[in-house]
């Protein structure tokens, strides 16, 4: 072990054995260019092979390695040890999700909500291949591009107290992706997403705390997407009240 070290306090939880998670201390080498993920990999390779956690690309595009680092949701591949010197660094599973084992959480709820908002281009009739591709101007792309940057890392759900208190809440990422497709000039599926967003557990649960946008590693700003969806939803609601003969658009 080189001279400089740093201590990680890592959550351990064994389903069926432990009633609740506990913390285990590990001392790892401190390197200026290491991230928390490097430290976890060191622990698993050299100290305790039973430590369980998710990771993949280690460069901030896959969204697999989200965990709580000193109480803040972070991608562990983007959390440099030097920012936490002298430590100790507390590494816990992503907040507001059920813990499966150690640092691994259950994604089921998010996956179900993601499917619910139908995050794909919906057309009345598909354009035949012979007619060529959909054309889109740079300005049309600009309208939704920011919201398409989501890597489904779920840091926003971990930052959202509303999701913690009301697990039925659709949540920031799912709402932002619904908004992204509603804004896409190629999409004609607003009427399928609108009931999901305007549901009682849709955007109306949000109290605009805004922490989701603060922790998002890709600058998606889901808080903005949700508030703008509220504006659209309120307009839809007003239209349906004042002109009930019109079907919901």
């Amino acid at each position, binding site marked *: 072990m080189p001279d400089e070290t740093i201590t990680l306090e890592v959550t351990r939880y064994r389903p069926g054995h432990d009633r609740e998670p506990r913390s285990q201390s590990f001392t790892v080498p401190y390197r200026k260019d290491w991230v928390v993920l490097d430290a976890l990999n060191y622990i698993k390779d050299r100290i305790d092979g039973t430590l369980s956690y998710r990771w993949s690309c280690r460069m901030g595009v896959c969204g697999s390695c989200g965990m709580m680092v000193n109480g803040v949701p972070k991608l562990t591949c983007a959390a440099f040890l030097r920012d936490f010197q002298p430590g100790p660094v507390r590494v816990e599973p992503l907040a507001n999700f059920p813990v499966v084992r150690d640092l691994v959480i259950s994604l089921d709820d998010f996956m179900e909500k993601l499917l619910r908002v139908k995050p794909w281009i919906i057309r009345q009739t598909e354009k035949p291949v012979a007619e060529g591709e959909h054309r889109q101007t740079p300005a049309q792309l600009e309208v939704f591009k920011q919201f398409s940057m989501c890597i489904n890392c779920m840091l926003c759900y971990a930052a959202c*107290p509303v999701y913690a*208190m*009301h697990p039925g809440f659709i949540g920031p990422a799912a709402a932002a992706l619904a908004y992204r497709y509603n804004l896409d000039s190629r999409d004609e599926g607003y009427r399928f997403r609108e*009931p*999901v967003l*305007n*549901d*009682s*557990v849709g955007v*109306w649960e949000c*109290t605009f705390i805004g922490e989701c946008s603060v922790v998002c590693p890709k600058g998606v700003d889901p808080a903005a997407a949700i508030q703008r969806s*509220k504006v659209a*939803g*309120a307009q*839809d*609601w*007003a239209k349906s009240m004042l002109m009930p003969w019109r079907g919901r658009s």
Partner: protein
Amino acid sequence: MARTNEPLWWTLFSVGGVVAAFLVPVHIVIHGLAIPLGWIPVSHGRMLGLVANPLIKLYLFVLIALPLYHWAHRFRFILEDLGLHGFRTLLAVLCYGAAIVGTVATAVVLIGI
């Protein structure tokens, strides 16, 4: 899945919030500090003349009644955030009910001058 009337309360909250943001600070300065402390002398006669004016009454109604819905919506969620979730319907009835009572009281007072 359930349709909801949340958009109504959110719209009232938003409009109330806009009214409060633009108008309340200056009115606190005027009616809470400047006039009582004598920085701006306003006689009873002038005050009465102002509040008797129908346009002013309308302005005062908007100023006072709408931010009550802003309060009701935010206060309801504050109570939930502090641990009272599970009482959603009760809290909504109490908060929006209070705002409606306040609206009626405002109208009654203003019309009566």
